[in-house]
């Protein structure tokens, strides 16, 4: 492995090739043969490269992050026996770290467990670890850690120096082991000598810290005999206490102590009760450890770090690492590393040639860490830009980032500014009873009066228990089982009939959904529950209040980047209820009911997005769809979690079976038990229908509660295989047709990554499944409208489903708060500001009460009423905005236009600076925007009641109707006014700006074209030939004239006449005419005239006369003259008639005939098409051109003739014509 990394660093192998090598087993044709040769001997190591790389980085960073939370990862050590690297000389001393985890040294019998597990799973021959530890001796030198799982516990950094192998070799101190090394506040890890004092440090164990090592068997000392202390399933379950023998020690006592303490903590819902001591697991803990400044100039080896960053980023991009967000967390840890633990100077001196090898430490200083982190972050920008606004802000403001990569900082800043993803961890809604359901809760559904009666009583007991739990569960010392256990069991005892069980389960499930529905989804209409009306009424102030409240109660940490599954908040009640009830019937009914509901919701046809109308308003509608998706998804996750909990409850234990034999027998037993829910089929369906974004998140919840055996069962193994395949395929950089939306992918990557870190999921699963992956193909029928391709996931949902992503933000925040925040977590001042919204609002208290009243009102009414009111409010609100746009805004735009006209008239043509004009207009008009609110209110007031009345049943009682109307008006007004007060000014600005630029543009280039443009008469049936046809015809004539042509080619005079006639018709009709076409026609007609004058048009007919006779030519010229005078509306370039080129045509004719030209010129003057002087000027300039001598003379004569007879009346023209032949000959002869 090290060999691969080294050859990468030496640039023998390109990163791209290496990633291809890792990602695909088959050799790609793109590979350079040299690279392939370098890599091919290492083939057997292929799948171990990624774990090696991850371990390597963790190892290397150990000096920098001595006290941060361990970054857990599930990267099993290389375990397969490896041949030595061919060609690579075995290095002298085997890396000390390769011996860090020699199996023989494990003292307790339980130490065998991990290897046994692994062996069993792999069905491999015997203790693979041993070979893993020693086999690849030649390869593991230097970094040497690949033989090891990378748990923090196995890092040799306890000694404070990686350069002291003796310490490391014997028995590595396990820093992440809280039992050995409880957090010691501000004391930086020094040399080993300080250890003893730490051991008696009474600092309580932070629950977060223990949470952040989900894979206990890797992150704590030899064996995890310690159930974690957080409120996970594992610990509070009755069997969670069984400690295997061999752990009785100080550790055990410590554990008991810790349990006791954590019990107190966890009784309260986790989010609500951060204890000061628990703090965050983040570097803030080492609060007063001042951060060393990082400087780009101090980076030791740019190239090397860049290369490693590149390969690491490529692995991230290809989803070769189990958990993307974990890696990001790690990178941010590096970015915010405070200082490097001192190293011996000799270590720091770069030995010659060390740069390209792994001999010298990768991170020699904080500078290196930050440089590396920033490099990786640059590659991960796409993911970063999708994080919430808060995280983006913290990143963008990070001074190290700015210092190391201003470009990235700029991009992040831009992303922050454009981000709308404000995410907050909201509090769970308060409990509210499930309303009476007439369709199921009535007598007819019960077998007897007595059963019905019992059910009614049970309902009451249930709520009593619930209320009591609500009141007491936060009190210290209160115990669920002690307080409620007997009552619950008594109640369950009364549920004798099966039918009563199903009724109770239905109630239980409904209540579960109602209470635990994550606050992100304010209940949609789908489920028919009563969601939080407060949030629906979501007034600005209420939202503010809520945010404030939330900050006060939000947990500082939800347990590191990879917390194990927990039951936070109200979920704890339901879990404890199930445990305390310990009723087989109840559990069975609950499973049935949960499975059914999951199937139902999973198959729910979620509405497609409507085609968007116009601008941003459709966002409002689209948000509704998103919200509905969020509600369904969150419900599914909740249900699946409980299904998983109940289904695997009987098998759950703290540890995998200790021996292989035992495990095999359990497997044999379990493999015949049918799954509670056919998740494999559902997953396959989901993938096929491109609904993975809905199916996978709940499936992950379900699997997260599986016991240790489950992943070994064939059935679930295939589920995992499928998930792994999916994970690998979710390459974020791929975009395009048929690809999943980015945030959808991110959600799936986050939940899957989390799943792969769950304690019960075998740690090597991720890396070992590969062989099967390739054989596996999901037949995704590309259905057009799969959910996967739709932007159904937003940041809010992402963070709700994966609160651990928020750890990134906390990590960054704690960096910002730095030494001042000794208590951990980020301290930010909350300054509630008053809104400056335009409309006056009723006092908050009244509003809150109103909201509660509305909620109460809906609670007692059928769900359809609520849906109707919401629908009406939403539509009327949206229509109101449109109406305002079409009326008020349009009026203002008209005003702006007239104001602008005035200004333009006043200021003359140039009109001043458009930007200034716009400014002054806006400042005049925008104040009128305030009217929008009044008008909007009126609109909603007027329109809503009618709509509500039309949609509700005729029989609705008057009082109900009027309340519904009122609420609808209120909601619609609120919606419209919220939008208007936020956007009206911008809207007016935008519209005015558009109008102004339109007007200014129109002012500009062609006022003539805009002016009077005569269309054809109304009677016209537009039968005239098309302009394109005429241009094409005239072009043919021109090309014939220009030649070359075949002897038989020519035009008939009739055709020419017809053509000009058609041109006239077309110019009168104008239906199909556009200005460019007319301009070209005008120009072509002038050229045609020139050809006529020069007699250059080849005429069809008897071979004797290949020329037009004079009379025909004159007739045609007359037609042209009248077209120019009467029909063309664009300027005709008549001066072209006298261009040297066109006049030059005459030079070619023998004998030259000037009479037509003279005739044409006079007619032009006569018809007022050209002025005498204009023609004179043209003729004058003609004489300057170079002509043959005789031609110049003739031209001069023509000029004189034209001048001599300035205003030739008709008769004289005739006379002129009579003398023409003579004059022509005279001219020719002269």
């Amino acid at each position: 492995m090290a060999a691969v990394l080294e050859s990468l660093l030496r640039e023998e192998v390109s990163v791209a090739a290496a990633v291809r090598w890792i990602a695909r087993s088959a050799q790609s044709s793109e590979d350079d043969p040299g690279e392939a040769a370098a890599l091919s001997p290492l083939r057997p190591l292929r799948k171990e490269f990624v774990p090696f790389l991850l371990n390597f980085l963790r190892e290397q960073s150990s000096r920098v992050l001595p006290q941060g939370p361990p970054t857990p990862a599930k990267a099993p050590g290389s375990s397969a026996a490896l041949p030595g690297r061919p060609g690579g000389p075995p290095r002298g001393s085997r890396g000390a770290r390769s011996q860090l985890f020699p199996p023989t040294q494990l003292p307790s019998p339980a130490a065998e467990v991990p290897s046994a597990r692994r062996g069993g799973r792999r069905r491999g021959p015997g203790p693979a670890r041993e070979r893993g530890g020693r086999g690849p001796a030649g390869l593991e030198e230097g970094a040497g850690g690949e033989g090891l799982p990378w748990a923090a516990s196995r890092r040799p950094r306890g000694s404070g120096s990686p350069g002291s192998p003796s310490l490391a070799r014997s028995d590595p101190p396990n820093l992440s082991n809280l039992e050995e090394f409880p957090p010691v506040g501000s004391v930086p890890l020094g040399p080993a000598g300080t250890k003893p004092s730490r051991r008696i440090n009474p600092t309580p164990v932070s629950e977060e810290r223990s949470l952040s090592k989900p894979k206990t068997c890797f992150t704590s000392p030899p064996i995890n005999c310690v159930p974690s202390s957080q409120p996970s399933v594992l610990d509070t379950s009755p069997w969670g206490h069984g400690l295997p023998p061999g752990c009785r020690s100080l550790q055990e006592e410590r554990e008991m102590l810790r349990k006791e303490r954590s019990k107190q903590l966890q009784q309260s819902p986790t989010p609500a009760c951060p204890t000061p001591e628990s703090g965050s697991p983040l570097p803030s803990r080492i609060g007063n450890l001042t951060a060393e400044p990082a400087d780009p100039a101090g980076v030791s080896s740019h190239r090397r770090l860049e290369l490693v960053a590149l390969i690491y980023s490529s692995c991230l991009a290809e989803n070769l690492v189990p958990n993307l967000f974990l890696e990001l967390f790690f990178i941010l840890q590096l970015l915010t590393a405070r200082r490097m633990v001192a190293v011996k100077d000799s270590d720091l001196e770069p030995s010659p040639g060390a740069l390209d090898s792994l001999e010298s430490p990768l991170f020699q200083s904080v500078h290196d860490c930050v440089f590396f982190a920033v490099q990786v972050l640059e590659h991960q920008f796409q993911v970063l830009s999708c994080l919430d606004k808060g995280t983006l802000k913290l990143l963008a403001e990070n001074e190290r980032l700015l210092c190391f990569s201003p470009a990235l900082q700029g991009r992040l800043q831009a992303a922050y500014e454009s981000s709308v993803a404000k995410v907050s961890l909201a509090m769970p809604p308060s409990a509210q009873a499930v309303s009476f359901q007439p369709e199921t809760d009535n007598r007819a559904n019960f077998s007897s009066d007595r059963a019905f009666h019992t059910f009614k009583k049970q309902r009451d007991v249930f709520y009593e228990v619930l209320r009591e739990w609500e009141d007491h569960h936060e009190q210290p010392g209160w115990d669920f089982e002690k307080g409620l256990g007997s009552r619950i069991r008594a109640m369950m005892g009364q549920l004798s009939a099966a039918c009563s069980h199903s009724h109770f389960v239905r109630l239980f499930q409904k209540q579960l959904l109602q209470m635990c529905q994550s606050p992100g989804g304010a209940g949609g209409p789908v489920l028919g529950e009563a969601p939080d009306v407060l949030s629906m009424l979501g007034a600005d102030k209420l939202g503010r209040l809520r945010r404030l409240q939330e900050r006060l109660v939000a947990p500082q940490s939800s347990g590191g980047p990879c917390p194990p599954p927990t039951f936070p908040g109200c979920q704890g009640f339901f879990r404890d209820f199930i445990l305390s009830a310990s009723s087989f019937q109840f559990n069975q009914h609950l499973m049935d009911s949960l499975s059914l509901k999951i199937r139902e919701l999973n198959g729910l046809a979620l509405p497609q997005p409507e085609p968007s109308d116009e601008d941003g308003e459709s966002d409002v509608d689209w948000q509704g769809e998103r919200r509905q998706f969020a509600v369904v998804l969150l419900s599914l996750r909740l249900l699946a979690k409980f299904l998983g909990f109940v289904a695997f409850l009987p098998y759950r234990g703290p540890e995998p079976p200790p021996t292989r034999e035992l495990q095999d027998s359990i497997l044999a037993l379990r493999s015949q038990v049918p799954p509670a829910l056919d998740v494999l089929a559902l997953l396959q369906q989901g993938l096929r229908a491109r609904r993975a974004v809905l199916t996978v998140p709940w499936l992950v919840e379900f699997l997260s509660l599986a016991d240790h055996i489950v992943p070994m069962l064939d059935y679930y193994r295939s589920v995992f295989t499928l998930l792994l395949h999916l994970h690998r395929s979710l390459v974020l950089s791929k975009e395009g047709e048929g690809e999943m939306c980015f945030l959808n992918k991110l959600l799936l990557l986050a939940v899957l990554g989390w799943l792969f870190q769950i304690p019960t999921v075998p740690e090597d699963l991720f890396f070992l499944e590969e062989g099967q992956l390739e054989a596996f193909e999901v037949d995704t029928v590309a259905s057009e409208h799969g959910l996967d391709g739709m932007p159904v996931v937003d940041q809010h949902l992402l963070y709700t489903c994966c609160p651990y992503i928020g750890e990134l933000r906390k990590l960054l925040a704690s960096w910002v708060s730095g030494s001042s925040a000794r208590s951990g977590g980020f301290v930010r001042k909350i300054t509630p500001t008053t809104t400056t919204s335009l409309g006056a609002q009723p006092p908050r208290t009244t509003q809150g009460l109103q909201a509660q009243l509305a909620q109460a009102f809906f609670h007692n009414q059928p769900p359809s009423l609520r849906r109707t009111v919401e629908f009406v409010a939403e539509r009327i609100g949206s229509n109101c905005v449109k109406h305002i746009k079409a009326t008020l805004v349009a009026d203002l735009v008209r005003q702006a236009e007239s104001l602008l006209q005035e200004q333009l008239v006043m200021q003359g043509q140039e009109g001043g600076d458009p930007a200034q004009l716009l400014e002054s207009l806006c400042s005049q008009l925008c104040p009128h925007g305030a009217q929008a609110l009044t008008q909007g209110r009126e609109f909603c007031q007027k329109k809503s009641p009618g709509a509500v009345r039309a949609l509700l049943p005729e029989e609705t009682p008057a009082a109900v109707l009027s309340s519904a109307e009122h609420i609808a008006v209120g909601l619609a007004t609120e919606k419209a006014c919220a939008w208007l007060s936020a956007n009206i000014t911008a809207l007016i600005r935008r519209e005015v700006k558009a109008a102004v630029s339109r007007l200014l543009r129109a002012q500009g280039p062609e006022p003539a074209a805009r002016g009077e443009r005569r269309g054809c008469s109304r009677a016209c049936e537009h039968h005239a030939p098309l302009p394109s046809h005429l241009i094409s015809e005239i072009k043919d004539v021109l090309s014939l004239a220009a030649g070359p042509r075949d002897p038989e080619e020519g035009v008939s005079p009739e055709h020419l006449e017809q053509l000009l006639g058609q041109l006239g018709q077309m110019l009168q009709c104008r239906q199909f005419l556009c200005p460019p076409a007319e301009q070209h026609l005008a120009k072509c007609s002038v050229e045609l005239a020139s050809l006529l004058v020069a007699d250059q048009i080849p005429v069809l007919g008897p071979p004797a006369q290949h020329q037009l006779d004079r009379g025909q030519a004159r007739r045609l010229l007359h037609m042209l003259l009248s077209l120019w005078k009467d029909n063309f509306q664009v300027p005709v370039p008549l001066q072209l008639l006298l261009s040297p080129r066109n006049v030059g045509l005459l030079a070619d004719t023998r004998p030259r005939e000037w009479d037509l030209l003279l005739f044409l010129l006079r007619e032009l003057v006569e018809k007022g098409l050209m002025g005498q002087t204009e023609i004179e000027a043209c003729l004058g300039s003609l004489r300057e051109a170079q002509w043959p001598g005789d031609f110049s003379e003739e031209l001069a004569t023509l000029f004189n003739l034209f001048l001599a007879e300035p205003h030739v009346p008709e008769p004289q023209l005739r006379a002129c014509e009579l003398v023409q032949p003579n004059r022509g000959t005279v001219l020719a002869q002269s």
Partner: protein
Amino acid sequence: MILTKAQYDEIAQCLVSVPPTRQSLRKLKQRFPSQSQATLLSIFSQEYQKHIKRTHAKHHTSEAIESYYQRYLNGVGKNGAAPVLLELANEVDYAPSLMARIILERFLQEHEETPPSKSVINSMLRDPSQIPDGVLANQVYQCVVNDCCYGPLVDCIKHAIGHEHEVLLRDLLLEKNLSFLDEDQLRAKGYDKTPDFILQVPVAVEGHIIHWIESKASFGDECSHHAYLHDQFWSYWNRDYQIATETTCNTYPGKLSICFPNLEVWARLSHLLVRIYPGAGL
């Protein structure tokens, strides 16, 4: 009238390395008397453009330009009235207008201090009398009027056809009482890329739903379908005008008929695009 693929192929076959001149078009008309001139010209033009796209580069190497210019100079030195430039273009199998542009550019480079701007060249091609050299002016003019696939006149004809068909289409829609928004209205609403018409109420034509109509006024061969799809139609689709697919159709004044090519690309689209052609479509 709708062209079959076989008919189209036959026409296209005839157009391999044929110069884009009046004579060629006349021969084509004689060969396919049943096709309208507009259809033949449109196909000719498209085929020829494909050919030019393929060979364009080799005529623009500096060696090629130099050798053309020398040949031109030699030619007009012998006889300025002969169609030197046109024959040169035909001989090297390049469009006369484009050849004229090459020579003109080269000429101006030689005779002016500053290299000629594009707009100057374009203006001279539009009106050769601006060209300082009379012989060259005539040569260029001859090339331009004789080229039926390139040049300012041809561009104008194409533009005119496009405009006419939009008008035709609008009339047709009005006549059929179909309510629509045209490009100007759509732009006023702030759409960046718009088709010619969006129907406010979709209609069904031969079993296909039509949401919008884009008039292309050119023959719809596979290649142009692909190009338009890529450049424009997907943009409409992306903007969720809920639309887009194939169809070539043939309207010549007043008649709307549509046919559906069985091209694979189209299969992915569920809706329908109507393209209106001056001639027949595939």
